[in-house]
């Protein structure tokens, strides 16, 4: 796996997630955290692109603590995986580099 992309902005307000997804490739991972978890909602403006990338093999994760904090657990796309801070550390070590989109 090459790059882990982290996104901490809501795609309803910022273009950050869209920018990330435009250069994300199939061996990459995407971790949504802080307000970035709004990007994991079924109503996310990036739903089509996210699904396309997941089908190509990109793994997309949302940080469970931030999801819970915002009450979003039942509103997420089913193809997005949930992870915690331990998982975040593991993802950081499993990828060659981390690119933070903020």
């Amino acid at each position, binding site marked *: 796996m*090459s*790059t882990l992309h982290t996104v901490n902005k809501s795609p309803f307000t910022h*273009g950050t997630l869209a*920018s990330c997804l*435009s*250069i*994300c*490739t199939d*061996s990459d991972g995407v971790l949504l955290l802080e307000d970035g978890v709004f990007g994991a909602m079924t109503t996310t403006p990036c739903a089509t692109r996210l699904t396309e990338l997941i089908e190509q093999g990109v793994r997309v994760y949302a940080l469970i603590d931030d999801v819970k904090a915002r009450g979003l657990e039942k509103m997420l796309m089913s193809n997005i995986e949930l992870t915690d801070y331990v998982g975040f550390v593991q993802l950081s070590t499993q990828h*060659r*580099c*981390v*690119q*933070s*989109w*903020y």
Partner: protein
Amino acid sequence: MRKKILFISRHAPYGSSIAKEALDAVLTAAAYDQDLSLLFMDDGIFQLLPNQQANAIGQKSFASMLPALPLYDVENIFVHLESLQARGISKNELLFDSVQTLDSTAVSALLAQQDHLLSF
């Protein structure tokens, strides 16, 4: 050991200090003889507009600082094509012509080649 380091600058100049911090970091890293590249993306491409008169707001112009990069051996300077297109700016309107445009696919490949990414 010589490492491949890519600086990604995605924020407009002046509104925040992020763009300036990116430039300072690049110039600092240049002193350590590493394989550096700099990519302008999203609103970061606005740093490359000519005719910046930052003295009007009491700041130093990026247009006067960026052309110094090749003097510090930072010669791999890239700009994301789709970010330019989204803002209606063409490559020949940019501050200096030694920047290379890369489309999204090429940017993906550039990231995959690096040992370290520094995002600003």
